[in-house]
């Protein structure tokens, strides 16, 4: 069997591990336009703030390709999938034939147009090379403007704080991290980040750039030395679209990760839509664990096993300047349980006798996985001691039978 994987990141590596679960001999080739050994994308902000070395950027041990017998074609871009001839065409016109293909192309930054933006020049923050370019450009005390107060924008702010306290973040939304936090939690995190000297302009956007000055819609102006555009990301779906596969916002797959309307082509990770089991609809879940798991399922199916990817939910664990957040599931619910003291915040969202989602901050993040399991396993709250577990996430709240299964049986 001849396996080809486009993308050398979480989805691609998951696919290798999935294939090698049973197929120890099939040929595997990974293609990536990034010239690096597989690295952990979230680490680019840690690298930028000098908290992680080049060596520790690796997502797997250095002997990963050898141990798993993987060929790599790095620094070359796949430009077309020829489904009739079953080959991938690269940007140097070379051709790579496949029996089974995985597309794990991830996403790219979405940069809205604004008058003067291109003339001004900007950075995005998604790749190792982006972090390298920023590190070269940033001088101590530089004025930094970041457009976008989401995870990527704020991770860039945290990293650049190592070089300068002169950082301004603007976002169209009226709160930071609007995709994962409610208003209360967002306000706690915003105050925490502001206490480090970062300034925010929320509920507004850039009207135009004039040289190194941004004119905002709310009338303010903001001058900068370094501009980072972190408004959002878009899945890389072009290869699949051109090949005739189904694409909505992301690539549409079966539960086996096989791309709908194509044969022998699979997709995984940030370029795809997942079925969010907490709300029952397709969504892009652009998080690393999801990419790895989808890749692994794809690899297993590509190599002849039968596995389905089910039970994906939105979930995030992330910290800024030492304050941690863990969130999961859906926040549209009938009922909620809330505790707040200082920077510590907990909100459990309850719907029809099930835990629908949660937001945990500060000291309340401990043992979060117990709550995650309540959502994923859809455990009726009336079957457990919810009064106990809402304050003390633990196994004591489960029935003896369930607990014995967890603690006294092999799994």
């Amino acid at each position: 069997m001849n396996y080809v994987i486009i993308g050398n990141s979480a989805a691609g590596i998951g696919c290798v591990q999935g294939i090698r679960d049973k197929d120890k001999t099939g040929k595997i080739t990974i293609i990536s336009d990034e010239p690096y050994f597989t690295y952990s994308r979230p680490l680019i902000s840690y690298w930028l703030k000098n908290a992680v070395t080049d060596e520790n950027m690796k997502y797997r041990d250095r002997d990963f390709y050898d141990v798993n017998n993987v060929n790599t074609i790095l620094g070359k871009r796949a430009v077309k999938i020829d489904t009739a001839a079953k080959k991938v065409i690269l940007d140097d016109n070379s051709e790579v034939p496949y029996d089974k293909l995985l597309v794990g192309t991830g996403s790219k930054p979405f940069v809205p147009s604004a008058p003067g933006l291109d003339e001004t020049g900007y950075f995005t923050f998604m790749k190792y090379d982006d972090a390298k370019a920023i590190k070269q450009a940033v001088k101590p005390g530089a004025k930094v403007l970041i457009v976008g107060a989401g995870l990527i924008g704020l991770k860039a702010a945290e990293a650049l704080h190592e070089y300068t306290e002169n950082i301004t973040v603007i976002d169209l939304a009226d709160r930071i991290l609007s995709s994962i936090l409610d208003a209360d939690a967002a306000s706690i995190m915003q105050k925490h980040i502001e206490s480090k000297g970062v300034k925010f302009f929320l509920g507004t956007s850039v009207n135009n750039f004039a040289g190194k000055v941004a004119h905002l819609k709310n009338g303010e102006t903001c001058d900068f030395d370094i501009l980072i555009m972190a408004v959002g990301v878009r899945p890389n779906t072009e290869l699949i679209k051109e090949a005739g596969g189904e694409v909505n916002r992301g690539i549409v797959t079966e539960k086996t990760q096989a791309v709908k309307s194509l044969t022998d082509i699979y997709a995984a990770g940030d370029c795809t839509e997942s079925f969010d089991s907490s709300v029952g609809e397709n969504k892009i879940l652009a998080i690393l664990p999801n990419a790895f798991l989808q890749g692994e399922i794809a690899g297993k199916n590509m190599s002849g096993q039968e596995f389905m990817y089910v039970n994906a939910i939105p979930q995030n664990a992330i910290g800024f300047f030492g304050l941690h957040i863990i969130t999961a599931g859906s926040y549209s619910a009938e009922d909620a349980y809330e505790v707040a003291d200082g920077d510590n915040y907990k909100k459990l969202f309850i719907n029809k006798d099930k835990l629908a989602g949660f937001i945990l901050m500060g000291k309340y993040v401990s043992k979060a996985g117990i709550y995650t399991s309540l959502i994923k396993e859809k455990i009726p709250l009336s079957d457990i001691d919810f009064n106990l577990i809402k304050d003390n996430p633990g196994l004591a709240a489960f029935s003896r039978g369930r607990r014995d299964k967890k603690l006294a049986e092999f799994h």
Partner: protein
Amino acid sequence: MKRVYVNENRCLGCHLCEYWCAFANSGEDSITKAFKLNKEAMPRINVEDDGEIHFAVQCRHCNDTPCVKACITGALSVDTEGLVTIDTERCVGCYTCVLTCPYGCIVIDEKNGGKTVTKCELCVKNAGGEPWCVKECINGAIVFEDRGVSI
């Protein structure tokens, strides 16, 4: 592979295993030193109490290793036997594993302000050999056995 299993009926809720675990991973050569010099000695096993109910919980070394698959850096890994270990040099303290472990077994390392996490490694990296919690449990409530097919 041998794993640690818990017999809830026998657990007295004495929390001794927590002390021995903290000692085993403290790098000290005696339990008194561990707690004198290393005030915040931190166990990777946790005894839950709820009225009459007591039981110890630590990493189950799950067969499908959800934490390893979720780890964003590769700091968590599983060996061919099924032992799940952490390379704290590569951990950046993102807590994705805390979010993922269904048993609450990933321990935030409060000794370094939560910059990394830690977990039960069945005493393979310390001077143990056999898990200390098992060795020191006074009522046989924690056992070290092979109860399943290996991965």
